[in-house]
């Protein structure tokens, strides 16, 4: 908790510093950063966007409220790609976050501020949000643990929506145990979120009790290794697979053909939803506002505050939902999504977890990916299928390439969060 007191932020991990919560409870020993797209009562919440500059929510997100009730100290709002749209935390209106492992490189994104704050030791844990990999990607790039829960396990009430059918709030920390403790507090039914209706179970204990790897069945989809994956990253991944094997796990190479289309489907759905979710930022009720003119002009000028990447996604999403293109894009993407769900379902009939490299590469240099959005989108190829299927997934540190961390992504069947945490804990133990 010390580094957060002086306002010094060498990696630009924070948008706002604060000090709320703290007190008795299960998490009274933890300082926590909260991604700045999660609402915090009386603390400015910007989504790293100009359009929300100065917006102070009158209410806490359910996850934040539960953290406060558990005695956690919330010490800052962490940086992100504007509205969570990016994989580098460079599209923030408040400047790029740097990777503590190598400050000339990106921390990943979009929860880059959360992962960087954890990796730099500025907080014990942080909340991120994961729409297509936004918790797991920065966890992998920064060498920490990042967890994306089953869709519906953690309330989204107060999470400022980017793509609401895909995104989840998830914790990032140095180790699986801390991730489990935070998840245990924020998980569970919430009457303010109609989609959050899952029984949580004792996730803190699950994260403390590694499974016996001897009985574990692991599937490795050929679509997530090989082509497009950096050979050095793949070599590290194979090393992780060997560790699992040597502990007695059975590893099968499987095929999940639907994953070939997952990336395209993901972007169509995410952008379509974004075009609707971001419509409310018209400057009428909050944010800097659009100034003079009739309401059409005023709305337009308020929305001019969006950054380029956000505008790109809103426009593409609007297009994909428009009459005449809806069937061809949005509906087709939904069909592809259903196929991804079925593929996972089929694989989990035999396997306990699906394993792959979290990211096909290690952290890029600052500025490297910004010029070519398509190339940036490609980086999400291994993480997005999980969000389409709504299943839980975790990135655990598993080696490095030239000192840059590599993450192992483990994914389980829907609502098998406890088992997934125990598996991640077992791998963590075996790897070290």
């Amino acid at each position, binding site marked *: 908790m010390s580094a957060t007191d002086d306002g010094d932020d060498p990696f630009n991990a924070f948008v706002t510093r604060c000090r709320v919560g703290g007190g008795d409870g299960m998490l009274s020993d933890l300082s926590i950063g909260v991604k700045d797209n999660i609402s915090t009562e009386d603390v400015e919440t910007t989504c790293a966007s100009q359009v929300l500059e100065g917006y102070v929510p009158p209410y806490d997100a359910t996850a934040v409220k539960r953290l406060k009730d558990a005695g956690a100290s919330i010490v800052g709002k962490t940086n992100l790609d504007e509205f969570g749209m990016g994989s580098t935390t460079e599209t923030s209106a408040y400047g790029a976050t740097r990777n503590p492992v190598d400050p000339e490189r990106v921390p990943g994104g979009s929860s880059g501020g959360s992962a960087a704050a954890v990796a730099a030791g500025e907080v014990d844990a942080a909340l991120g949000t994961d729409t297509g990999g936004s918790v797991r990607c920065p966890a992998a790039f920064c060498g920490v643990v990042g967890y994306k829960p089953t869709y519906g396990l953690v309330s989204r*009430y107060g999470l400022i929506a980017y793509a*609401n059918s895909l995104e989840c709030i998830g914790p990032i920390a140095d180790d699986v145990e801390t991730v489990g403790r935070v998840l245990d507090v924020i998980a569970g039914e919430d009457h303010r979120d109609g989609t959050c209706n899952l029984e949580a179970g004792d996730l803190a204990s699950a994260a403390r009790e590694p499974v016996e790897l001897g009985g574990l069945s692991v599937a490795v989809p050929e679509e997530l290794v090989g082509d497009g994956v950096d050979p050095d990253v793949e070599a590290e991944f194979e090393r992780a697979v060997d560790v699992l094997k040597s502990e007695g796990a059975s590893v099968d190479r499987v095929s999940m053909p639907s994953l070939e289309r997952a990336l395209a489907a993901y972007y169509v759905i995410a952008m379509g939803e974004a075009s609707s979710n971001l419509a409310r930022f018209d400057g009428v009720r909050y944010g800097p506002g659009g100034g003079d003119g009739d309401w059409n002009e005023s709305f337009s000028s308020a929305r001019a505050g969006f950054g380029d990447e956000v505008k790109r996604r809103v426009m593409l999403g609007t297009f994909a939902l428009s009459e005449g293109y*809806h069937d061809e894009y949005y509906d087709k993407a939904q069909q592809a999504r259903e196929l991804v769900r079925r593929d996972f379902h089929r694989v989990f009939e035999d396997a306990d977890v699906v394993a792959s490299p979290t990211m096909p590469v290690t952290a890029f240099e600052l500025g490297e990916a910004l010029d070519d959005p398509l190339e940036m989108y490609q980086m999400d190829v291994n993480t997005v299928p999980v969000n389409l299927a709504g299943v839980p997934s975790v990135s655990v540190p598993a080696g490095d390439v030239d000192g840059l961390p590599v993450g192992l992504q483990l994914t389980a069947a829907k609502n098998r969060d406890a088992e997934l945490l125990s598996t991640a804990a077992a791998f963590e133990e075996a790897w070290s």
Partner: protein
Amino acid sequence: MTDADVVIGLEVHVQLDTDSKMFCGCSTEYDDSPPNTHTCPTCLGLPGALPVVNERAVEYAVKVGKALDCSIAEDTAFHRKNYFYPDLPKNFQITQYDSPINEDGELEISVEDESKSVGIRRAHMEEDPGSLVHKGGSIERSSYTLVDYNRSGTPLLEIVTEPDVESPEEARAVVDKLREILEYLGVFDADRGGALRVDANVSISVDDEEGTRTEVKNIGSTKGVVKALRYEVTRQKNQLKRGGDVQQETRHYDDDRGVTVTLREKAEEKDYRYFREADIPPLETSEYVEEVEIPELPDERRRRFREEYGLSREEASKLTSKKAVADFYEEVADVDSDLAATWVVDELLGELNYRDMTVEDVDAEDFRGLVELVDAGEVTDANAVEAIRASLDGRQGFVEVVEERGLGVADEGETLEACRTAVEENPDAVDDYLSGDDEALNYLVGQVMQATGGGADPATVNEVLREELEGEG
């Protein structure tokens, strides 16, 4: 133009009378509240807030579905209708698109004793936007606009008819009938301003060839339905008569001027980009369908009133158009169903209406007491009317008024006494009568009625006076 038929389809939006809003816990009792006091993160569309479905609204929707004989979807879902408008806090409206809760229903209407059935295409749930206040008058002239989000999120049911409506009068009958049914179901507050709004699709088909249709928006009352549609039908017919074409467009009904004006032409029609609202999981209706019961509906009750109480069609109709009136009548009916009907329909309702009151403001048991007195001949008709007026004006019981003011029938002795006094005190009238002037008798009757405070029976007075005057002669 040879054979021209009017083709109308209606979209009737009604506010469901729930305590809280469609997707949040805010109260819907905002009519007398300052602006923006019945709001929360959800109905203000604050970032991160989520909608949760109001179960009571679903229950009400199912009630309406059952009453209109709709097929009720086992699974129903919500959609987003995307468009920008300042009264819409999220810049999308949560509604139901391709899986409405109610479909394929029917509504019986009658116009001038002709009955017909109008198809109900669908009746789906959605949320009301906020309301706009244009400062400085009309939307064109105002310099700025204020937004009040109190109404934002109020539950709406949009009831869409098939294009089976063939005249403005039938359209009115549809709206009236819907109001009646919704009120019977207890899901609608008919007295609330803006609780019912109508859009209408209107076209003229010539020689069975479908015409181009216009959509008329912003019809706010039952009277407005007839006015707006008569205007629009005439406008379209004139257009065709002159050899012109009807343009496909959306028109705005201006209630003050009684005209429809172009709002949007076809090319400007919006693309609402409907898609599933992922924040609301699919809704299973089976439990609602099993548990929701509907009461006896107006048509049924009308039939029963005619059979059970022997009432005329007109009486039965007047007594059943409001559920509260029908309930009131049934508490009085067993005294004498005809007499009760006469007194409720002909006297009480009129007097109530005149004072802006409803049957809910009076005690049925007490009114029944008054009808019993009339039935027993203990209060004259005129005095009963007097009692009703005094009672409503003074907010006093009917029977109490009769007693306090001595409006009861005068007994024989009193009547005889009053007649004798009248004869004694009016010798001129007596002389006139005796010399053959019958008018003089009426004058004497009047004097007696006045003396007995209207309590004497005019026929008896007449008789007694004749006898007394015979004696004089």
